[in-house]
């Protein structure tokens, strides 16, 4: 079993994470062997269509997976701590403190019956052990830091009195109030208007500089990735299918799925008759295809794709889960490969269990 090449200075390391849901109809392998890392101060973009397991990966890091879901294998380390080995109490101290999380739906992510300021102050007084009153003042300070005018008054208002963009700012203020080392942002701008989206992204960038924190940015929007991310992980049906730095992914994508995603972004100044969209739909998680999970939708599908492709290192730091050669050609074993040959070839290429 070859390990994923670890890079120095990783803040968060996820290895072979499997989070499965035991439903009435069968086991849904929402996250099935995912590995990646985030360095201190780095922003990692996690991309994929809805249902690919990116949010579940984030919730696994927070250990907020609810029944019928369960983390069944793998390890998640934050600096030198094994998060999956922590007691519930120790984990609570990590949540909202070392790792904070903001969610997709600012409209429903704040408790409707408590004033915004109190909800921020609650996190502060919990983790910093300071008094409610002092925490209240800090909350107001955080609100003005995230660009909320008249913060003192806003702190006393209830969530329903604020707009969506304002609420997301409150969420960000809450998440950053304890100076986390890692911020997990799950589709932070998806539910917002385009102009508000830009403002929130700007805010996150500014705060990232100031607080020197790492960000795990989950999105299905490659525009957001291009704007924010240093490195990118592309997920499909619970697995990482490609990962590299942001330039490589945008300039030299290897996996046909990544290529499809990139082709589906409209670009200014480019003459195309129609937007290319990946055909078909994400496979039913209860009935995944044998072999490559993307083969039914893949324009380059070959018989060898009936065997699960390995995650191969295309070039240093660039991984792709596809049978295509690094140059993007069908492999020699391609056209009519026997399973055994394919498995042997896979073993040679695999960089991961």
């Amino acid at each position: 079993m070859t390990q994923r090449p670890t890079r120095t200075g990783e803040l968060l390391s996820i290895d072979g994470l499997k989070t499965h849901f035991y439903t009435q109809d069968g086991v849904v392998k929402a996250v099935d062997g995912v590995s990646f890392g985030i360095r201190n101060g780095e922003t990692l973009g996690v991309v994929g269509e809805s249902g690919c397991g990116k949010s579940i990966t984030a919730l696994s890091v927070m250990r907020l997976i609810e029944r019928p879901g369960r983390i069944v294998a793998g390890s998640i380390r934050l600096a030198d701590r094994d998060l999956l080995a922590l007691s519930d109490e120790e984990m609570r101290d990590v949540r909202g403190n070392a790792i904070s999380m903001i969610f997709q739906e600012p409209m429903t992510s704040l408790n409707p019956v408590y004033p915004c300021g109190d909800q921020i102050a609650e996190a502060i007084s919990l983790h910093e052990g300071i008094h409610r009153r002092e925490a209240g003042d800090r909350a107001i300070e955080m609100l003005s830091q995230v660009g909320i005018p008249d913060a003192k008054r806003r702190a006393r208002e209830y969530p329903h009195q604020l707009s969506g963009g304002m609420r997301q700012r409150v969420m960000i203020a809450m998440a950053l109030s304890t100076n986390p080392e890692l911020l997990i942002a799950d589709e932070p701008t998806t539910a917002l208007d385009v102009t508000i989206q830009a403002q929130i992204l700007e805010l996150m960038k500014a705060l990232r500089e100031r607080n020197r924190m790492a960000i795990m940015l989950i999105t299905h929007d490659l525009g957001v990735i291009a704007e924010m991310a240093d490195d990118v992980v592309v997920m499909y049906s619970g697995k990482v299918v490609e990962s590299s730095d942001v330039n490589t992914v945008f300039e030299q994508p290897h996996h046909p799925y990544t290529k499809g995603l990139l082709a589906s972004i409209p670009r200014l100044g480019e003459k195309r008759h129609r937007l290319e969209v990946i055909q078909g739909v994400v496979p039913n998680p209860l009935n995944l295809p044998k072999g490559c999970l993307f083969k039914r939708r893949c324009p380059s599908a070959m018989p060898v794709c009936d065997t699960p492709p390995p995650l191969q290192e295309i070039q240093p730091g660039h991984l792709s889960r596809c049978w295509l050669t690094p140059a993007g050609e069908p492999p020699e074993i391609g056209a009519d490969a026997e399973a055994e040959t394919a498995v042997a070839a896979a073993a040679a290429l695999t960089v991961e269990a």
Partner: protein
Amino acid sequence: MEGTQVTRIPGGAIPAVDEVDLTPVRTYWQLVRQRFVRHRLAVIAFFLMAILVTAAIAIPLLSGDAWKETSLERINQPASLTAPLGYDSLGINTFARLMKGLQTSLFIGFAAVLVIVFIGVTVGSTAGYFGGWVDNALMRVVDIVLSIPTFFLILMLVAFWGTGNVWVIIIAIGLTGWTTAARLVRAEFLSLREADFVQAAKALGAGDRRVVMRHMIPSAMAPVVVAATLGIADSVVVEAALSFLGFGITPPEASLGNMLTKAQDYFYRNPLLAWYPGITLVLVVLAASFLGDGLRDALDPRQRVETN
């Protein structure tokens, strides 16, 4: 997301095309059945209700007048094969009487629900279809009916208009119980009125009556069926309470309620007499409510409150 993988064409080299997801399309009723069968308690309730209904019809039919035949020799005789629950203080076969009482109760329950559905659908569809002042006026009537405590209203109707008369009881329960059904149908109609298929039918020149009867009522029936099933439980209990207070079915006719009242008088000799009709009543209520829950999940998944 109900996908089943389809057999692949052997030797096919173009997987993207031949592996199209060919999940068989299920009809509405197949889906309904599937969702209902998955609700285990509802299936049990269905069989329980079937057994209760069958017993209530068959046993009085087979045992003739046993439910009211008194006999001096058999007074307080213990249980036997022909009288599994023994004989009461008048020498009547308790089991036979219980089944006759169940028959009366179920008949009243089902008949009252039919009245409820009839009034509810009529009022609800009229209000929802025409809207405007018609809707307003009918909804005020609903408010008024809802504002008189239901049981007391039924009690007044039955006591003053025909104590002991099965039909008065049925109509009284019906006249007071239709508001829920009316509201459900009205809500359904208000949204259906603008639905494409109704607009299409109107555009094709279908008259009001035809549009309502052929197109809208069938679509609005799901929540009504659910409410009606749950209503059976309520109606049976109301009948028992009326009979218990002496306004419902009066002896010698049998009903679960008047068996309970009579059991009061013979408590010291046979305390179990109060349990038989009560437990039968509870079984009917349980069967009807689980059946209702199952039907709600099956017919009208949107209404589902709690997911597993």
